[in-house]
């Protein structure tokens, strides 16, 4: 099949605008799946994706499109991408393997924050972008207004929009035609030495490490000797194939193709997403590597500890495997006084964190104790050195610190005009700095703010939804570190500092926040036989205190001959009950594992 008959494109959109549903339709139309196999969101094949109804991983599939007008069969490589902001890097990786993109806009919602963000990414990659107004089957679809927004905000022609409904299969033929006509065929020389971009990889229990590749130049066959440009290590190709949508072996992948490769890889770390695969027969110096990717930088960290200390090794193996499927996820061994051996793990955002944690518990059957997440901080020390802090408990002694710097984000909101006031208030509460405001038509506004990342990654999105009745959307990206008046707050349970509960926060809000944490702890820690003092401190100074009153009465007054056995059983039961509660000993206090997350829960609740 000639390179002119190949098209490579991604489907991109704001979250829930219907990417995966439309992908299903394209698969069905091209016979990649039969009506019988057809089910919703085919490509969301992880359990978690199905349950949550969202795409987490980009997935690639090769379609054979028999074009009615010329009778030729085109090879379409489609990549369905996630919409959530945490998985933004999956989108940029996918785009690097494509020449075009279908940009979906839910016609009932119009252009939203991630529509803009993803469109910008596609433009940066110089892709041919086809706007599609989706969900037109719905009565609430506002086709004209949405088309106008596409033109005004994204700079694409209104007339270029295709009307579609993934759900009803409307517009599928037009989309396939547009893919052939409006997206350019890949360039690249099949006769040149091999250069292939690794745009993803995953671990498969049967095939081992499956590497997703886009061939830029040259060819790939089974048995070829290849080299990873970055490491210089060489391997022999064991299998190549295409996703249809299951991995199906084939004989040849050549310039312009998208597919997969397995090789004699021993270690999962030998594959690096973004790296270039080249022929081992060509000297390494003679190859110009492909641009690759900016490594995604995890900005949100938390501690993950096995609930059962015996599972540290199992947890490490599981993290290894997950990290292979997820290059944005990082981890490092950490030792906590309170929680023992575990790992400090970095994520792109809270959803990403939740998903990794859930996969660990589910796919690897490891029970976890998670500590509250935090963003990364930079500290400047008096000796003029700087340090990056991913774990608040590991922050240097306050006397050594000259200043803290915290990560800042540039945030774009798209909100209906009636909620502007609420959103501005929210941003100001979160130490935001106004940048600009632009109207989209007369009803909606794009707002831009600079806000400390720590203020937005945890509960901000929920807050935004609630102050805009669900209509506001946001997108953000990290722009750099900025000096801030921060302090490390330690939590002491009955006089013992608990490393896993330390946080870094803005000094102005420290006391309020500390009090909230203590109140939560108070609710989580059951009464003991003695009064438990809970304190929060900055340096040596106590900034908040709470206490948990003691059990008032627990005594059997009568205990004679006949009662002894019964009484012993009762005591044994009490003891058993306590053992069953998963908890950690902090001095004489048993702290339930859930309490370590108490700091995370920043929902407002009245002090009682």
């Amino acid at each position, binding site marked *: 099949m000639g390179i002119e008959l190949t098209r490579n494109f991604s489907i991109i959109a704001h979250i829930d605008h219907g990417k995966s549903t439309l992908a299903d339709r394209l698969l069905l139309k091209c016979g990649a799946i039969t009506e019988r196999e057809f089910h919703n969101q085919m490509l969301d094949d992880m359990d978690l994706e199905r349950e949550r109804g969202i795409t987490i991983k980009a997935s690639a599939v090769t379609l054979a499109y028999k074009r009615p007008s010329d009778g030729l069969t085109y090879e379409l490589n489609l990549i369905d991408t996630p919409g959530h902001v945490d998985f933004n890097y999956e989108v940029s990786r996918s785009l690097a393997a494509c020449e075009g993109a279908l940009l979906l806009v839910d016609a009932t919602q119009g252009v939203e924050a991630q529509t803009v963000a993803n469109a910008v990414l596609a433009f940066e990659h110089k892709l041919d972008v086809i706007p599609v107004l989706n969900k037109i089957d719905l009565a609430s679809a506002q086709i004209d207004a949405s088309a106008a927004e596409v033109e005004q905000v994204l700079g694409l022609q209104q007339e270029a929009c295709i009307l579609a409904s993934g759900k009803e299969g409307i517009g599928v033929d037009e989309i396939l035609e547009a893919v052939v006509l409006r997206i350019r065929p890949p360039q690249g020389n099949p006769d040149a030495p091999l250069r292939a971009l690794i745009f993803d990889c995953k671990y498969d229990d049967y095939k081992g490490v499956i590497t997703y590749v886009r061939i830029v130049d040259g060819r790939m066959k089974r048995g070829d000797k290849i080299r990873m440009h970055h490491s210089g290590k060489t391997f022999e190709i064991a299998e190549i194939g295409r996703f249809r949508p299951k991995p199906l072996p084939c004989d040849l992948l050549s310039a312009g193709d998208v597919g997969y490769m397995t090789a004699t890889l021993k270690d999962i770390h030998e594959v690096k997403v973004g790296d270039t695969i080249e022929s081992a027969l060509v000297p390494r110096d003679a190859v110009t590597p492909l641009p690759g990717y900016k490594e995604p930088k995890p900005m949100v960290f938390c501690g993950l500890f096995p609930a059962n200390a015996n599972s540290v090794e199992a947890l490490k193996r599981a993290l290894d495997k997950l990290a292979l499927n997820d290059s944005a996820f990082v981890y490092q061994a950490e030792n906590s006084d309170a929680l023992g051996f575990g790992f400090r793990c970095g994520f792109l955002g809270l959803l990403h964190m939740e998903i990794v944690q859930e996969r660990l518990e589910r796919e690897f059957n490891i029970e976890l104790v998670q500590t509250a997440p935090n963003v990364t901080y930079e500290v400047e020390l008096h000796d003029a050195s700087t340090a990056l802090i991913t774990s608040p408990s590991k922050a240097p002694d306050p006397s050594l610190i000259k200043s803290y710097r915290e990560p800042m984000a540039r945030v774009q909101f798209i909100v209906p005009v009636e909620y502007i006031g609420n959103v501005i208030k929210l941003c100001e509460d979160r130490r935001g700095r106004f940048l600009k405001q632009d109207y989209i038509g007369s009803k909606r506004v794009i707002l831009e703010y600079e806000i400390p990342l720590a203020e937005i990654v945890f509960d901000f999105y929920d807050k935004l939804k609630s102050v805009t009745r669900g209509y506001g959307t946001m997108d953000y990206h990290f722009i750099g570190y900025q000096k801030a008046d921060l302090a490390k707050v330690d939590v002491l349970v009955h006089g013992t500092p608990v490393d896993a509960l330390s946080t870094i926060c803005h000094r102005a809000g420290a006391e309020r926040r500390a009090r909230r944490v203590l109140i939560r702890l108070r609710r989580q820690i059951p009464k003991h036989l003695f009064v438990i003092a809970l304190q929060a401190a900055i340096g040596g100074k106590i900034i908040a205190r709470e206490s948990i009153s*003691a059990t*008032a009465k627990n005594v059997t007054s009568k*205990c004679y*001959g006949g009662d*002894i056995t019964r009484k012993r059983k009762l*005591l044994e039961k009490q003891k058993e009950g306590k053992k069953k509660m998963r908890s950690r000993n902090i001095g*004489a206090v048993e702290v339930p594992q859930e309490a370590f997350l108490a700091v995370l829960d920043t929902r407002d609740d009245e002090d009682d």
Partner: protein
Amino acid sequence: MSMLTVAKAQTFPEGLYVHVPFCASLCRYCDFASEIHTAARAERYLGALETELSVRVADLLPDERFAPRTIYVGGGTPTALSIAELTRFFDILRKHVDASRVVEFTIEANPGSTDEAKLELLRRRGVNRISLGVQSFQPRFLSLLGRVHSAEQGREAVPLARAAGFDNISVDLIHGLPGQSPDDLRRDLDAVAALQTEHVSAYGLAYEEGTPLHAAVQRGEIAPLTPEQEAAHYMTVMETLEQAGLLQYEISNYARPGRECRHNMMYWRNEAYLGVGASAASFIQWQRSTNHEDVDAYVEAVEATGKASATSEVLTPEARAREALVLELRLRRGVELAEFKNRWGLDFAAACSPAHGFLREGLMERTEDGRYRISRRGLPVADGILAEFV
């Protein structure tokens, strides 16, 4: 006592408990093995009791007479038996038990069930200690508890026993009653103190499942005191009785020096005893066994087999030691490390790391002579402490 003497004491129990499961009427909080007294039921019961006693004693000591140091007749209300029944009861005891070594012979009695004639009979048959179920001195609380005697009868019971020649008298008191104010409690305590008894047992009211009182609480008809109020009452009891010269020697027991109940001390020292009658427990050669609670089940079992054990369990050395620890920690004298180790082979210090936390928190303390005990502050939550040692 060395481990060897302990082992010997286990073979030859020095205490005898006899249960009499009859009362004039049933109290609302009661979860003891007891039923309303009738002549026919008592007759059949005493027959079974005699059989069991003879069989158990013969099993225990085929070649000699059983000569305990303490006898405790509990119930129920043993004095609910008629003069004739009581006479038969003591005859049975005399027939199967050698009373020559007995130093303490206690019977439980209720005000109203102890007239002069009965008291005189008890004295004549060797009973030298009487435990009177007075419970409260206020009509309101007596009726709440479902006690049949009056406050007046409660007050008179002690002088009556004195007059009959008892010089070792205990009264039972219940505190933590629903609606009981600190003043109510103080009045009861003053009344008890005024009686000048040798011994007081003061129990916090427990709402045992299956009792009418528990059901009333479940239905919301009765509101128990809060745990804080109950604990405060308990503290008041300890302080007030102590001021009255009644020294606390166990979680719920107070005595003038030397008047601690020897029989009950034996339980808390984890020593061996023989128990006969419905629901009676025995601890012999490290085996704990308990008889059927239900009178019919008890009588039928005895009539069929001569015995009536419903459950039994042999304790491992570790279990014995742990049990001993939990029981001895109920005592105000506390536990002496070397002695405990010598006696039970269990190293308190090693087995009881939780003690350190309790010591630090003031829930346990070391006495001047170096013994470990639960502090007064710890007593209201003694079960929480003891649970760490089982």
